[in-house]
């Protein structure tokens, strides 16, 4: 599961570099997210994790479950937010009402600048 990570303005930005989060990769996605969002060796934890889904074209219920799991395994008050959902991905979040659970931004830029979305 190809995920790239960078810290920007105190936000841990995780970009999914694959077109699908489905049953085939769901467990690996969840495991990678656990590594990425684990406390740093110094004990610090990312307070805000932004998942960039801009390159994801398809997600199924297993992929959705893996994103929920990734959010649940975050430490305490840390938040998992989502950005740049393609129409097919957005549809799954809306149908399952998971769009009411996650903060969803139009793009990574709007999420980082806080300019609405």
């Amino acid at each position, binding site marked *: 599961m190809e995920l790239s990570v960078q810290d920007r303005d105190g936000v841990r930005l995780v970009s999914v570099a694959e077109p*699908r989060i*489905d*049953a*085939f990769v769901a467990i690996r996605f969840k495991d990678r997210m656990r590594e990425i969002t684990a406390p740093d060796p110094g004990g610090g934890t990312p307070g805000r994790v932004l998942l960039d889904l801009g390159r994801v074209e*398809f997600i*199924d*219920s*297993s992929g*959705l*479950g*893996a994103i*929920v*799991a990734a*959010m*649940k395994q975050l430490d305490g008050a840390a938040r998992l937010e989502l950005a740049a959902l393609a*129409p*097919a991905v957005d*549809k*799954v979040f809306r*149908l*399952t*009402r*998971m769009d*009411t*659970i996650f903060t969803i931004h139009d793009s990574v830029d709007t999420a980082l600048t806080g300019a609405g979305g």
Partner: protein
Amino acid sequence: MSAPPHVQASGGPSRTGDRRVVARCAARPADVRTALGRVMAGLAPHLGDCAGRTATELVLAEVLNNVVEHAHASDAPCAIRVEVRVREGRLDLSVSDDGRPMPGGRLPEGQFPSLAGPKATLPEGGFGWPLIHSLARDVRYRRRYGRNELRLALCLKAPGATTAPKTPQ
């Protein structure tokens, strides 16, 4: 592109003018993903970018995932058979497998799991059948000759919900 050993697909127009795609695969996540890709590629000329395309891929993925996760169909190359027909704005999907029957011999409920409650109790599963029921119609299941048979239909002509013009302010 050659098919992996456990995925076969074929398709083309029938005499009656409807379009048919058939695929067979083993009940393994990697093979199911490949088979889904082949079916969607086979359907692409007939679906285009219509609103039903996304629903078709999602419903088919959920049906196949359920077989892999719950029916425990065999690893035989033809454990799962998928047949899709497209005609006059309607898509008919038929999926059969050689796994265990549905519990109680009937389709699971279509209720989405509740999202109420604290973060720790949020559901990570249970969305598959509700998604299928909310996107498809005429969902039917039967057990025949030792195989599960699931049939359903999708409307490819976008209903008003997604294409309705915006009301003028």
